[in-house]
């Protein structure tokens, strides 16, 4: 575990220092136990303790700063006890930079039959032998303590934003009750940073209550959860904007499950710092390359005889460009160039225009006259 002892950095496991701003957007240095990161940053998903097919050298070369590991999968194989016995996930993978683990709750709900959420925790059928099992907030934190990542996530009651009704309110309040259980169960607060997750669906009142509740607990960082699940983009950016406005300035904001390069640019303009998504790794498996203009479907017949190189813009590089453009005071120009490349005809989606207005970034040069 590496401690950074620059004179102005206190000895806590997380420290955020903002280096540059443009309105709500910020570029910062995020000091974690294993690595000194630059934000905005993107975390590729390394589900089972590896980013598919890439060696650690290759990951370092492309500028990867934090990798996300899935608690559910790792607890299954090789088990958190084994990882702990062998010195933690960093040592197990030989990954010298930072790691983040999720709580395991989301995988359970999305992957398993008969998963159900009660006040106790998430009940599910063991995928190994079918026996009923229970993942409580306490158990989730214990597993994550054993795995040893720099950032660990609270177990939250996550509902899709496409659901309506009282379930959303129930989930939000339960998330607040569970954060206290997570905090109590956390055995390594000096080495691992517990992030709370803001829930509340698309309801601004619920979101506000949740933000206040979490901020009261003075956590090292905050995630905006429950999005990136199929809701319309106009609702999506509004929730992000509301949360980033209300969350403390000196703590990182992590929008979970985001995503597409365009979403990352918009959320960064609105003041978010961290992102994760399976999108780049998953889409690569299907033969799709991410390029500044959008995507290239490499498996298509049209590509069979195309001898030009791909022009890669991987998510890690996007976030690096975001960071440097904010620090160097040219963020609006960067955003405009980004949008012009992606929408050469000027057909920037309306939700992006609305979001940029709130973010205080003038993108009129990229947009043709929008229909009202």
């Amino acid at each position, binding site marked *: 575990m590496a401690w950074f002892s620059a004179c102005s950095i206190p000895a806590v496991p997380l420290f955020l220092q903002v280096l540059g701003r443009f309105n709500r957007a910020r570029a910062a240095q995020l000091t974690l136990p294993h690595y000194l990161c630059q934000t905005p940053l993107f975390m590729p998903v390394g589900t089972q303790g590896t980013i598919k097919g890439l060696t650690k*050298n290759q990951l370092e070369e492309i500028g990867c700063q934090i990798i996300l590991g899935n608690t559910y999968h790792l607890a299954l194989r*090789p088990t958190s006890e*084994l990882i702990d016995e062998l010195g933690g996930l960093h040592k197990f993978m030989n990954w010298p930079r930072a790691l983040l683990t999720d709580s395991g709750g989301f995988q359970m709900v999305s992957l398993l039959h008969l998963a159900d959420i009660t006040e106790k925790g998430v009940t599910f059928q063991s995928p190994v032998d079918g026996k009923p099992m229970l993942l409580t907030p306490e158990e989730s934190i214990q597993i994550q303590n054993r795995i040893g990542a720099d950032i660990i996530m609270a177990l939250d009651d996550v509902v899709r934003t496409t659901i309506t009704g009282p379930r959303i309110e129930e989930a939000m309040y339960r998330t607040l009750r569970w954060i206290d259980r997570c905090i109590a169960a956390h055995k390594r607060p000096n080495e691992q940073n517990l992030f709370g997750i803001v829930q509340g669906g698309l309801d601004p009142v619920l979101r506000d209550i949740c933000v206040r509740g979490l901020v009261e607990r003075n956590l090292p960082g905050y995630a905006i959860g429950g999005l990136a699940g199929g809701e319309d983009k106009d609702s999506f950016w509004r929730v992000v904007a509301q949360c980033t406005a209300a969350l403390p300035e000196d703590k990182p904001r992590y929008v979970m499950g985001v995503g597409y390069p365009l979403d990352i640019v918009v959320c960064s303009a609105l003041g978010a710092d961290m992102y994760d998504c399976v999108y780049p790794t998953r889409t690569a498996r299907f033969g799709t390359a991410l390029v500044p203009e959008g995507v290239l479907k490499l498996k298509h017949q049209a590509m069979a*005889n195309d*001898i030009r190189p791909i022009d890669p813009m991987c998510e890690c590089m996007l976030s690096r460009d975001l960071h440097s453009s904010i620090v160097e005071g040219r963020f609006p120009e960067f955003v405009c160039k980004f949008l012009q490349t992606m929408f050469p005809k000027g057909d920037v989606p309306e939700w992006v225009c609305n979001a940029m207005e709130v973010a205080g970034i003038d993108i009129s040069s990229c947009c043709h006259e929008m229909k009202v």
Partner: protein
Amino acid sequence: MEQRKSPVRGSAAGQLSFPNSDSRSAPHNPQRPARFHLSGPPYLLSSFSGFSPAPVQPASLLPCFFSSLEGISPKTISNIGGLHQMLSLHQHIFAAVPRDSIIALPEHDSTNKYGASFQTPGGRLLIKPAEYVELVSSMKPDFWVTLADEVPAWVSDKRNRTSVDRTLRWLDDCLSLNKTGTTIFGSIVGGSSIEERHRCAQEVAQRNVSGYWIGGFGLGESMDERAALLTAVTDNLPEDMPRHVSGLGLPEEVLQGVAAGIDLFDSTYVYHLTLGGFALTFPLERNKGDNADYQLSDSGGDDMKINLKATIYRKDTSPIVESCNCFTCQNHTKAYLNHLFNVHEMLAQTLLEIHNTHQYLGFFCSIRKAIEEGKFEQFRRNFVESRRECLFAAASSD
């Protein structure tokens, strides 16, 4: 292309040079001596002595098979500029060989007078000499092997004779179709008949080729009968021309080939090991003691390989081989590899292939050094005996 061999009978160490692919259009550029090693399955290894004792980045020889290029047209490969460009491996040397021991095994039943038949994942493929030459010319390899009619050991004498006749005819076809003056290895077959092997080798030796490719091995013959068949071929070939054989991959088979005068090998041994999760573990360092004996290790019965999927490695925090300086052993533990294999992650095979390749290359390096020091027979004996001891120990411990 030139070759210089040291005047040692039987197994020989030498140096094989190819013109740098960049200098093909400028024949006055100095030739770059190449030290061959493997790269990617299937690959090519050599028993040539190294150009320098330091671990210089060796050029690698890669067989490339027309069948693995299904889906990409020869025209496109040509437009890109050939294999070196397409794979972005400019420092490497490519050989085009018709047989792919993984995905395009020769189908001797379907081969006919028009062309050679191969069983591929996309179905059966019949390729004629003219098509073959066209494909090869689009790939622009450094050298290529003429189309052959390979048959396994158990075919009838008549079929075997036909395969030799056909192979010679196709060799002449390929030579006459070769407009670009590229480097060609003549193919020699003959199955399991000493006479036919003699005949084919003698005939090919009379042709204007730059080296010899020996086919029809690794198709079911036994190791015992193979030794005589190999020497039946190599005895008829000029000393100063390279001999390349496909399909011999086990270390003992390689040693057998080297003893018979073979210089270049390609095999799928490492590929299959990696698929099964096996890691090569036989130690490669020479005994540093002052006795002249060639020993592979001083630990008595050494084993060749381990299976990383085995549960005993779940918590093993040591590298595959302690003294190995491949990327995998320098960075990762058996425990991590065991986990990756168990969860079917791609990285498992990437890392294991790196290690196995490194080990196997090291084996060839040891062979070359042994030859240079005039101790090859001893080296071979020690190796084979230590294997026997280990197998005996394993059997008697049951």
